């Protein structure tokens, strides 16, 4: 078990190095001169040269790359030009808002996905099945930002049930969470449905019914317990996807968060801010997937045993 964890941790290192390098290089090859943009109307040759020197942009690429890693090692992502605070500080200030939305989206996805999936499986081949699977298909297919706008029009403007913008209070979280989570909910609903259908055909379910157990008990006690194992693992893997969805939805609902910070950084041509945010998000993604991988080993003995047997 310990060895499995160690191997997974070590394998994450090259992924991180790759991400950091790509983030560094992408900003090098972007067209346009960021320095000239920062200076605006007052752009002159001297001012440009001074700022370039200040940012270290005149150094050879490899020097900049080495400096980039040295700073990273110290946890230093540089200083945001536009906000005039350390980039890491700006990111940490916005991270809780994005995390909150992602977790709420996840909750929405799990509750909704499982509910619809079980419903569809239990009422197999009825109009319930068709209807819930249609909703699931819509959830998977509708782009989240468009869904966000539809939710605003329907539930905020016309029905007047929820506020639209800003932070604070669970009522401000509902619509963005649905917009973030519906895609994953659709996916989980389809998965739950097929998984439950499969388990329903198993012998022990027939046995339980033959013993005269009430249908409710059969479903919740015998079927769901076994049917949900694959669902839970897929749900974990959806977390990263949900976070990238949250980044887009933040702008639609004018919420605080990393996504807004990135858009702001792009508008202000704040290179270090955008670079830091990209690195931060990618790293979070890697860490979440790593955590999911590791939790498998805990949840399902077959995985770690399989890994050790393969040696």
């Amino acid at each position, binding site marked *: 078990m310990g060895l499995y964890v160690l191997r997974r941790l070590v394998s994450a290192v090259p992924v991180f190095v790759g991400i950091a390098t790509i983030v560094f290089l992408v900003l090098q090859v972007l067209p346009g*001169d960021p320095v000239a943009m920062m200076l605006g109307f007052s752009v002159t040759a001297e001012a440009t040269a001074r700022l370039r020197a200040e940012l270290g942009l005149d150094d050879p690429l490899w020097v900049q790359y080495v400096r980039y890693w040295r700073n990273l090692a110290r946890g230093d992502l540089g200083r945001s030009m536009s906000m*005039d605070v350390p980039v890491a500080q700006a990111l940490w200030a916005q991270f809780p808002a994005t995390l909150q939305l992602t977790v709420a989206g996840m909750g929405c996805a799990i509750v909704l996905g499982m509910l619809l999936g079980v419903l569809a499986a239990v009422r197999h081949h009825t109009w319930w099945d068709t209807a819930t699977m249609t909703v699931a298909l819509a959830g998977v297919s509708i782009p989240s930002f468009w869904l966000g706008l539809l939710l605003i029009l329907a539930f905020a403007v016309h029905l007047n049930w929820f*506020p639209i913008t800003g932070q604070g209070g669970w009522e401000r979280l509902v619509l963005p969470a649905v917009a973030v989570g519906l895609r994953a909910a659709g996916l989980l609903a389809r998965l739950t449905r097929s998984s439950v259908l499969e388990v329903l055909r198993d012998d022990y379910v027939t046995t339980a019914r033959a013993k005269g157990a009430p249908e409710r008990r059969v479903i919740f006690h015998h079927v769901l317990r076994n049917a949900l194992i694959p669902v839970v693992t897929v749900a974990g893997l959806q977390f990263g996807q949900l976070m990238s969805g949250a980044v887009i939805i933040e702008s639609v609902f*004018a919420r*605080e968060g990393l996504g807004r910070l990135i858009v*702001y950084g792009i508008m202000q041509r704040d290179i270090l801010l955008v670079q830091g945010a990209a690195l931060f998000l990618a790293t979070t993604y890697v860490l979440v997937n790593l955590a999911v991988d590791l939790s498998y080993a805990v949840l399902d003995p077959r995985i770690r045993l399989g890994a050790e047997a393969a040696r």
Partner: protein
Amino acid sequence: MSLRSLVALRGMLVAGVVALSLAGMPWAETPRHASAAPAGGGAIVIAIRAEPDTLDPHATGSRRAYAVMKNVFDTLVYRGPDNKFHPWLAESWEHSADGKTYRFRLRRGVRFHDGTPFNAEAVVFNLNRIVDPATRSRTARALLGPYERSRAVNANTVEITFASTVSPSGLLDSLSQAWFGMVSPAAARAAGADFGRRPVGTGPYRFREWRPQNQIVLERFPGYDWGSPAFNRKAPALGEITFRFIPEDATRVAALERGEVDLVQEVATDAVERFTRNPTYVVVRGVAPGGPVIFWLNTEAELLSDVRVRKAILHGFNRNGLVRGVYQGHVVPAEGPLSPSTWGYTKKVEGLYRYDPSRAKRLLEEAGWTPGPDGTRVKGGRPLALRLGDLFDRRRGEYFQANMRQIGVHIEFRLVSSAELFGMTRRAGDYEMASTWYASSDPHILNLLFHSSNVGTGFAISRWRDQTLDAKLAEAFATMDDARRAAIYEEIQLYIMERALLVPLYAETEIDAIKARFKGYRLDRGQYPELFEVVIQD
């Protein structure tokens, strides 16, 4: 959204809502009003599209920052809707005959939000701060032109000296803009680079809070009574102003409809009708002065070096079709290098290039461009294909592309980032056409956009190098008499259009929607929100 599609939508989402739609919805009975009145005068919540970079007036060049800053900072003079200059922090002013020395007599009894007094020393500090390279001024420094020095003649008189002549209307226009807002020297020294995050001025509102990615809140400055005589009151009525950053067009509009905000800036043209028909709202619009939205023609690009080709492009473009078809008539067509609302604009540019595709085709034939097999004209085996880069808006470029196809000009249209646009327009070989828009309340903006010294900086994108034009621009800047100055700018506008250096599209139009219970709202000269005279009447 129609009722039927809404019902269908409800049906679609009903399963998802079932868990959430608890009967009653206690929090939803009345929408939380944005303007729950605080002490005295009430509050206003304004939805703006983007967050300012900084609230340091001397450093920034952002229009969103301007809208906030003009409430926190006062300027020496105020330019009214009548285009005239009125006293504000300066009570009166005079200048030497050669236009190199200006004296401003300052109002007494004015203090900054931190309690320090506003006086001639403070003005000197402000002007020196603007020209200090460490300030990294994006706009104010350029507007201050040949500034040499300033000194406090006495506590309430300041003298500014320029190295060469500066016209009074040009200087006063600069000084009337929020980029020249007077900052507290004590606060600026203490805060250093952080000043833009906690600004201190003499304005009617003082800074309270800036929550990144969320909002900026200002509160009325108690004791403020030095509003410009151009206003109908000495102090503002509203007690609090909140600027919320809502990037999505549809969300901004929905937030107003639901009552989360009271005023929306930059209403998308397709949403204007909804507010115009509804008496609960008032739509306020204004045509921004300065340059219009422009498709530049790069005269140093081989394909556009022939003036006949450039003129053909101008004649082949159906400007009114664009304005009516794409923007539903909510913008004003522009036919010259200045927006029609700019002081010094000449109507003589109108009708110079009427939409006339057959004339356009004739001009191209004369220039030796003949139709090729796919409809695109060719000359010496080379197709007439022009690269056009534009920011933000895809629709105008695609409309233009369709127009040009009819006269046999192929447009390779691309949406680019501002950094990319700025980069490519600095090198002659990287583009044929590009789009920019710069607002300004003085025609001196033409210097930035056409003077040969600005070729290659990303501003003078038509790359026209011409000593006659340069001389005229310099002369206009230094002409003391306003009528004579306007006459020179008229010559310049016609000179530019005769040489077909650009395709003017339309003047950018600010469209705001505000709840009707807020009375007295207008846009100022630069089309920024003017909140000083706003009162709430239920």
